[in-house]
């Protein structure tokens, strides 16, 4: 539904304030929708054109229930796209709409300028529609159940992507050795260390010194070992590996590609939740209180704003943490509370009243919003003073009392936990180490254990999904209860075997045996 006139005028007004403050955004297309439609779009992750799948229906049911019981309301949704799409709830009051519009402009500014969004597809609305068309076509051709089942399988692996991949070119596209083919056999040429030609025999030790030759030999051996290994380096983009090397039909490969592409599209939003919501909240608050509101609206604004900022003891509210951290940074740079002088100052009172009147705050937070993601944002700016100010604490489950309890107020511990929960979305890091394990075409993954075990029953189900794609036995090396363990699924049974910490599971097949044969 197009924007009614009064909202259109309001939007122009808010937009001019946003530009005045220096926000820089794509064109924004606003739509006003009834709550059912908002719930629907939210269930589709913001894209009304998305492909059909039952999990969106599940999501929709939950959202509708939440709405019906009055436990939650979606005021707006913004889509990272050029032009940006923003959906407003029909039932919002005028003050709500003002806040929400200001909020949306800041989100859009963030999408456009934050470096982590640099490589996201800005025509995703169209792309999603194309994905849907393709998936529908596959459904007609191969049957709904089959395609849907395959999508379920892919979704199990959705989180196995390389978050940093869009920024780094890790390798040129690789061609795999065919199954069973020994990756090392065509490496014969590289076996001898090339020597420089020598005219007189006695010069040889000087022209080709022994230690140099030895070093080169080792280097070559290492190269050969790597070439045998496949992939040569551990690979975090498991989905890509599967796309390139798993025995799939063309449509299956395409569906897997679609799931992967969408996962990459949504990844930066997960990586910048605190920053993005904090930024939007900072600006809706600034724009509303300094420009857009009239006196009669301030109470309603405060009510709405405090609702958004509300915290519960057991969780971190990204809106709250984000806005406070931006304000903290702004204040710090306004007053020049950084650098050597400040750090080394021992006088607490002086420190508290420190003010060099630099006024660099605004500039700094604009820079922060461009360069950081949640992990680096928290890592760099959340300091002890801030933790104290915000009354952050750590909690854990106390087995002896059966309660969740606050267990620490120590800054280091709190920060460690917060960073842990943000790193890789708080999900385990899993890499492909060998796609031709034991020269039998088996797939070996390694879980980079960070102190927390995998949820085993889910890990097993996920391995079944991997097996469905790879169609050869699948292994995951992890740690279970402080023991190095190799989980294996061969299409029939799951086994778990305790292995030693360094038994070279990632190593290629032994060299000598193969040499003798060829």
């Amino acid at each position, binding site marked *: 539904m197009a924007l009614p006139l009064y909202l259109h005028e309001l939007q122009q007004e808010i937009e001019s304030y946003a530009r005045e403050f220096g926000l820089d955004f794509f064109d924004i297309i606003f739509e006003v929708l009834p709550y059912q439609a908002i719930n*629907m779009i939210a269930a589709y992750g913001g894209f009304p054109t998305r492909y059909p799948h039952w999990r969106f229906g599940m999501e929709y049911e939950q959202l509708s229930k939440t709405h019906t019981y009055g436990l939650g309301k979606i005021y707006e949704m913004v889509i990272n796209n050029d032009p940006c799409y923003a959906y407003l709830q029909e039932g919002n009051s005028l003050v709500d709409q003002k806040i929400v519009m200001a909020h949306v402009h800041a989100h859009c500014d963030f999408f456009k300028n934050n470096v982590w969004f640099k490589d996201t597809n800005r025509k995703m609305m169209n792309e999603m529609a194309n994905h849907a068309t393709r998936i529908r076509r596959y459904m007609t051709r191969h049957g709904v159940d089959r395609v849907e089942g395959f999508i379920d399988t892919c979704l199990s692996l*959705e989180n196995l992507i390389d978050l940093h991949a869009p920024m780094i070119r890790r390798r040129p596209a690789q061609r795999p050795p065919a199954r069973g083919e020994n990756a090392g056999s065509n490496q014969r040429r590289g076996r001898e260390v090339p020597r420089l030609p020598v005219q007189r025999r006695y010069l040889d030790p000087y022209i080709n010194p022994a230690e140099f030759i030895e070093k080169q030999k080792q280097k070559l051996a290492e190269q050969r070992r790597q070439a045998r290994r496949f992939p040569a380096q551990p690979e975090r983009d498991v989905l890509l590996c599967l796309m390139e090397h798993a025995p799939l039909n063309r449509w299956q490969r395409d569906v897997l590609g679609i799931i992967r592409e969408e996962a990459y599209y949504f990844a930066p939003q997960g990586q910048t939740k605190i920053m993005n919501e904090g930024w939007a909240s900072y600006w809706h608050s600034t724009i509303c209180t300094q420009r857009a509101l009239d006196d009669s609206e301030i109470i309603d604004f405060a009510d709405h704003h405090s609702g958004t900022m509300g915290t519960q003891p*057991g969780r971190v509210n990204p809106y709250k943490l984000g806005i406070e951290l931006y304000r903290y940074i702004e204040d710090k740079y306004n007053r020049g509370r950084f650098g050597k002088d400040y750090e080394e100052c021992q006088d607490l009172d002086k420190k508290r009243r420190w003010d060099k009147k630099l006024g660099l705050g605004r500039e700094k937070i604009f820079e922060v919003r461009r360069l950081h993601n949640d992990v680096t944002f928290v890592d760099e700016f959340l300091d002890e003073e801030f933790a104290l100010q915000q009354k952050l604490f750590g909690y854990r489950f106390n087995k002896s009392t059966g309660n969740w309890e606050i267990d620490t107020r120590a800054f280091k511990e709190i920060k460690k936990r917060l960073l842990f*929960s943000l790193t890789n979305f708080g999900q*385990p890091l899993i890499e492909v180490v060998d796609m031709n394990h034991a020269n039998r075409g088996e797939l070996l993954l390694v879980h980079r254990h960070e102190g927390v075990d995998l*949820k085993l029953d889910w890990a097993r189900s*996920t391995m079944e999904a991997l097996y469905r794609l790879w169609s050869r036995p699948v292994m995951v090396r992890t740690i279970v209860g402080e023991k190095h363990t190799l989980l294996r699924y061969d299409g029939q049974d799951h086994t778990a075997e305790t292995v030693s910490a360094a038994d070279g599971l990632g190593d290629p097949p032994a060299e000598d045996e193969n040499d003798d044969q060829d």
Partner: protein
Amino acid sequence: MAQKIDSDHSRFRQIVRGKIKDNLRRFITKGEILGKKGKDVVAIPLPQIQIPRFQYGHKDTGGVGQGEGEVGTVLQPGDVEGEAGQAGSDPSEHVLEVEVTIEELAQILGEELELPRIEPRGKHRLESEKTRYTGIHRVGPESLRHFKRTFKAALKRQIASGLYDPNNPVVIPIREDRRYRSWKVSWLPESNAAIIYMMDVSGSMGDEQKELVRIESFWLDTWLQSQYQGLEVRYITHDAAAREVDRHTFFHTRESGGTMISSAYQLCAEIIANDYGSGEWNIYPFHFSDGDNWSSDDTKTCIELLRTKILPASNQFGYGQVESPYGSGQFIKDLREAFGDQEEKLVLSEIADHEAIVQSIRDFLGKGR
């Protein structure tokens, strides 16, 4: 409004149904969903509907929160992230629960166990009158005047005739503007049913036996509820004497007396005669015991009561005998001997353990009475 999501939503419901169907036997034998019954809906835990991923298990690392409190302050379980109010040893476990209506559950039960629909007793159809306010009339009693519509009509008339002045927006309805609610009467055939549960609570019935009865009664309720518009449920416990109790007491009392089954049958016959005697009711007495009765004289009285009073008035009488280490299991044999296969309305079923519940439900409900 038809929405694009509707097809995905119905697909989801279809999958939920399928999962429930696949696991129905487990639900029945384990009695997992009994505690989750609301008025019209049942919450069923279906972890296997979630899409599995590589994920961290038990979060030993704890989390970060914000607010007041010293070290050692207890947090409300509901406040803690990723956890649905259940403080357990494995806090990260969050099992997805889906809600299905009782009708839907009964439908699934019916399909899975191939239960025939019950044809209500034909001779006495209760016709009930239902009044629904569905329309608007120009005439009617003042008490039913539709205020809003009346003013709307008046406004329309005033605008049409040029009498409306936006600067002085006074709307005055006249006689012709008045609108009244009108109603329709519809007649609905109605059939009512009553279930009378009787259970032996003497010393030989242990907790496990009662658990079997509880699970079985849940499914009997569910099915019969789906078959009748109105369903009343009564509970009778008995040892040497019978008394009518409420649901909670029914499943939780424990007596240590002897067993006189006839006392319960006597009370049951009285309840039928007093409350459901009009012949308009579909009556389903169920009796559960471990088959131990005080004396063979008493058993004779029971058979007599069944034959003359209870069976003629009921659609079906179900006797379920749960196995107990103390009971002799004699009663079912006596009934079998007395009635043989002659009496269609009498259904006998032996429930040895949890696994046997499914078959027993089928015994009781499989005849379509």
